[in-house]
């Protein structure tokens, strides 16, 4: 995989930059630890050899397209990342003709950290149903047949607990939350100019670092992504205090699937479930 | 007629069928059975009779015991399901019972109940087709030996073949066309008449003979006055009622009632070159042979 994928990406990047199709290629390069990958922004055809692709390439680079509005840009996306492209297209945050999508059939990524990489596959990849990108202009690797739907064992496990236990669990998480907002910064679906959490009037979330303020933040962050989260799980990966955000996201993913039969980012013309409706929705409310 | 087309479309390329003759075709309606088998063989349709079929329970069961009326057809359906072939059913009454059963088995609870009754796990994944639909398939080429030119046929479908539409899902309930089109392919003339799907009275055959006479006579006389040379049927019950009592009708209603009543498969048989003997045309009480001779068809 590695070498071959890397080469294909480099060649395509070179071609695109030389032809002037795009003015920047967003991909991955080996980080300064020499072990793990980090985002790379290539503007010069001569530098395409910086680009690599290996199983530490976890960043969802689609996020960076948001800063490239109006500039033709190529971006390297894995299966999960590609759903973010559709999300942003449907929410009119990027323009299709401005983005050249280099899709990579995802080999699954591993757990890694500064100067260390394990062979442990990341959780998100166990759940993943989208190794082949849903949208791309150029595909690296052969499309694979996807696994059957994952079960939500982790969610079920949490639901097996009593309400008190669940409340206690999240309270404990909230007490550790630093409100550094790394989860937000990594999320391609979080692109508001002013996030509600920093709003002073109305002050939805108080400045003080108190559990209920933190819970407020974590609940609404998750809910704002309800029916929009494309399960790249970057938010959880970047959390410095390891709050299991995937639990919230996946709980919502599961509900959205069962209530509205919807998966975010599968195409660029679907409407998120919370801004549409069916008159005959059966949701166990007043029925 | 949309339903016809869609049904025809479904049967494309189906050439092998499980076969459920039903009781009548082994007795009074032997000529239907025989002619159907001959014709199918001729046009390259293979019929595999189910080894262990039982009575569909028409009238006897479905008017007395609901569960039994479902269990009997279910037993037959189960075999067909195991064979994995579509099931061809000549008798309209059997067809109706099988379809009704499938319809009721759509309900989960009923499915479980009946499954327990016959001791087998049922499903509703069986295609059941009336013989008429099987043979009317326009994708089947008919190696015609003798065109039935000049023969005016009143196609009679009866009540059960096309009703109720939501259950049988075959042809149009008020003005069906399948048999008419088929007859035209044999170069016979299917006359347009209004009682194609009217009742012949079979339901009360034993209880109220007078009603049978009245209804059947209404049918035959209209067919006669509409210029038909014969009536073509696809149901042993209809055949019995229309064919057997014509003398009684003449007696009861005055003017002479005489109109041959043939199974559509027999008319096909003629066109495909079989002899009246092979087709048991001599078995009818209202003798069709003179008419056929007059028409130079035999």
């Amino acid at each position, binding site marked *: 995989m590695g070498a071959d994928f890397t080469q294909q990406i480099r060649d395509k990047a070179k071609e695109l930059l030389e032809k002037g199709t795009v003015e920047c290629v967003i991909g991955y390069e080996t980080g300064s630890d020499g072990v793990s990958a980090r985002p790379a922004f290539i503007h010069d055809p001569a530098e395409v050899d910086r680009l690599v692709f290996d199983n530490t390439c976890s960043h969802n680079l689609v996020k960076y397209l948001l800063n490239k509005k109006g500039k033709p840009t190529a971006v390297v996306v894995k299966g999960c990342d590609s759903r973010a492209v559709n999300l942003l297209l449907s929410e009119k945050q990027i323009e299709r003709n401005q983005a050249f999508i280099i899709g990579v059939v995802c080999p699954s990524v591993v757990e890694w950290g500064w100067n260390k990489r394990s062979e442990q596959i990341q959780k998100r990849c166990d759940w993943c149903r989208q190794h082949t990108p849903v949208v791309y202009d150029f595909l690296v690797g052969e499309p694979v047949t996807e696994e059957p739907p994952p079960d939500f064992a982790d969610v079920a496990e949490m639901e097996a607990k009593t309400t008190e236990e669940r409340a206690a669990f999240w309270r404990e998480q909230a007490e550790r939350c630093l409100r550094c907002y790394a989860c937000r910064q990594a999320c391609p679906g979080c692109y*508001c100019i*002013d996030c509600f959490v920093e709003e002073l009037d109305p002050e939805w979330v108080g400045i003080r670092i108190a559990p209920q303020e933190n819970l407020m933040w974590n609940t609404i962050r998750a809910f704002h992504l309800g029916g929009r989260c494309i399960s790249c799980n970057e938010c959880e990966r970047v959390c410095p205090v390891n709050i299991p955000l995937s639990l919230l996201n996946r709980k919502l993913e599961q509900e959205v699937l069962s209530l509205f039969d919807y998966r975010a980012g599968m195409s660029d013309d679907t409407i*998120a479930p919370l*801004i549409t409706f069916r008159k005959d929705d059966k949701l166990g409310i007043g029925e | 007629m949309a339903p016809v087309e869609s049904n025809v479309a479904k049967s494309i390329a189906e050439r092998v069928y499980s076969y459920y003759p039903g009781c009548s075709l082994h007795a009074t309606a032997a000529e239907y059975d025989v002619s159907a088998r001959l014709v199918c063989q001729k046009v390259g349709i293979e019929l595999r009779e189910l080894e262990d079929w039982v009575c569909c329970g028409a009238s006897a069961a479905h008017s007395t015991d609901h569960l039994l009326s479902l269990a009997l057809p279910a037993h037959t359906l189960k075999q067909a399901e195991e064979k994995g072939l579509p099931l061809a059913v000549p008798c309209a009454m059997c067809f109706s019972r099988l379809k009704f059963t499938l319809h009721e088995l759509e309900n989960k609870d009923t499915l479980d109940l009946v499954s327990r009754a016959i001791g087998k796990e049922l499903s509703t994944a069986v295609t059941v087709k009336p013989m008429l639909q099987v043979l009317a398939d326009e994708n089947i080429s008919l190696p015609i030996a003798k065109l039935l030119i000049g023969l005016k046929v009143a196609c009679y479908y009866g009540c059960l073949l096309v009703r109720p539409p939501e259950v049988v899902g075959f042809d149009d309930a008020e*003005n069906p066309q399948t048999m008419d089109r088929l007859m035209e392919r044999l170069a016979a003339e299917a006359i347009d008449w209004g009682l194609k799907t009217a009742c012949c009275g079979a339901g009360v055959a034993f209880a109220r003979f007078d009603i049978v006479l009245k209804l059947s006579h209404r049918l035959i006389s209209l067919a006669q006055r509409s210029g038909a040379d014969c009536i073509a049927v696809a149901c042993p019950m209809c055949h019995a009622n229309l064919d057997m009592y014509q003398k009684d009708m003449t007696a009861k209603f005055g003017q002479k009632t005489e109109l041959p009543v043939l199974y559509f498969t027999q008319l096909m048989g003629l066109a495909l070159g079989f002899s009246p003997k092979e087709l048991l045309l001599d078995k009818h009480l209202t003798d069709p042979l003179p008419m056929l001779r007059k028409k130079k068809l035999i």
Partner: protein
Amino acid sequence: MSRIGVFICHCGTNIGGVVNVPQVVEAAKRMPLVAYADENKYTCSEVGQASIRDAIKEQRLDRVVIASCSPRMHENTFRRTVATAGLNPYLLEMANLREHCSWVHSDSKDATAKAIDLVRMAVAKVARHESLFPKQVGLTKRALVIGGGITGIQAALDIASAGHEVVLVEKEPSIGGRMAQLDKTFPTLDCSACILTPKMVDVSQHPNITLLTYSEVKEVRGFVGNFEVDILKKAKMVDYVKCTGCGNCWQACPERIPSEFDLGLGRRSVIYIPFAQAVPNKPVIDIANCRYERYLKWKETEEGPEPPQCRICEGVCPTEAIDRSQRDEIVTEKFGAIVVATGFKTFDYSVYGEYGGGRYPDVISSLQLERLMSAAGPTEGEVLRPSDGVHPKNVVFIQCVGSRDDKVGRPYCSKVCCMYTAKHAVMLKEHDPEVQCYVFYIDVRAGGKDFEEFARRAQDETGAVYLRGRVSQIYQEGKKLKVLGEDSLMGRLVEIDADLVVLATGMEPSDNADVIAQTLNISYNTYNFLIEAHPKLRPVETQTDGIFVAGTCVGPRDIPDCVAHGGAAAAKAVVLLSQDSLTTDPLTSFVDPMKCVGCFACKEVCPFNAIEEQITRDGRTISSVNESLCKGCGLCVVACRPGAINLRGFTNQQLLSEVLTLVGR
């Protein structure tokens, strides 16, 4: 720093009897920003209102909380009160101490505690109120009427006579609609054409009415008072300025095709007017069927044999009015109000296979019978049955064909069938005394002035046999139609040898009623009948301001009801058009351009198409609210994650501060 005044009402003992008002007053005085608190016996009384006005002046209050009854009761009253004291009427908030407190709670302690909370919430909210000013928008004093049937005609005439310009759009070549197809009208039996055609002429001659026949409404933009409508004018191929309507062309035209107006019973030429008294009395060329047009088509490809060239109409036209250069064109017009009167069509009887409609030529619809009876019809008023043109003696009528029948998805009653069938029975007898009528019915519904009397007359005088029951089957037997049915009152089966069977087909909305509704953004029910704003109290209004509905497009009704309905819609339109400007409710949502990220979730959820796209100076595409369309529901506010949209009167700040008075710090 605002100075809030709180006024707590005893409402006699209604509130004071349960809630300890003085205690609430004391509590109110200690609430933040409250500069003054007082109590009244009856705040809504003149005395009470005066005390508020005085307090506002004396205490220099800039915001007011009135704790009394439900705002749904007195909000407007008190808005006027504070306004007369010089405050902006929107700087008022009410606390519902009566309906929501004293009337539902008996324990004084609890009720008082709750009352204090309710006041605190109101104070917190009013502190965040801002002065709001209703907007004035201009309006175009013109009305569009869609549909040239009797309803549309009435509406157009009334609006025009009130002095406003009207454009009447009709998709057919002539106005007149269904009523023009009728022979006589029940229960008076006066001739339909005789009472309709004068109105049609009035329309064509009215100085305020522009008639656009052979035209359709394609697109509607804008909002109440300021609609912009695209109208498709189909090519008539005839220059109406030159044409005198002499009729040479339609007499000379060699092609004859089934006439839509005569429902296939008669034939018409290809250059044609639908019927003799058509308005305008000038023809159109039905391009699809015109020989010469067919020739021109052929000319492009030259495939197949060369068709004849014809052009006879051009030859015989004395004024050279035939103009083949005409093409369909779209015109855009501005209107202040729109009246929709798109009418009905009759149910397709071939759905009932057992009646054989469509198979047997002598099974016809009631509307077809009207054409057979009409002196201007294909048989010039002689009732001759289609198959062989003989006079029918035995005529069977079947009621509720496509009405009151779930089986065909038409559970509603079409309202007019019972009466027009009675009419048919009476008139057939007049046409031919030997006629015997049989009517299969479910119920005879003769609710209306002189209706019951008339229905009786049909049964008693004409000897029509009314049979309560359905028909099970009809079949041809020689020249007769055998009708098998049930007489459920006698409990027996009946068999009738009929010469003619007439199906009383029900009403359903015209084709594309749903499309038009979508174009206008008004709602319609499962049968595509348009939905009024309120079935009882706003019968001709719709949820969209400035758009009115009338006639059978709303639901089955007879001619007098349609005329009344059309008049009602006209009156509403006139009320609107007689204003010089429109006042818009200021409780609308608004966008903060700095926060909007342009995801347009708001646009997705807005039921009123009030969200528009706008480009900011720095080139971002963001949303903005058309305040004339906004109805203040606030759906957009909740859909907006960054909180860029807010709703005046119910801002995020206000709702949050209300909550915070109850919980937390």
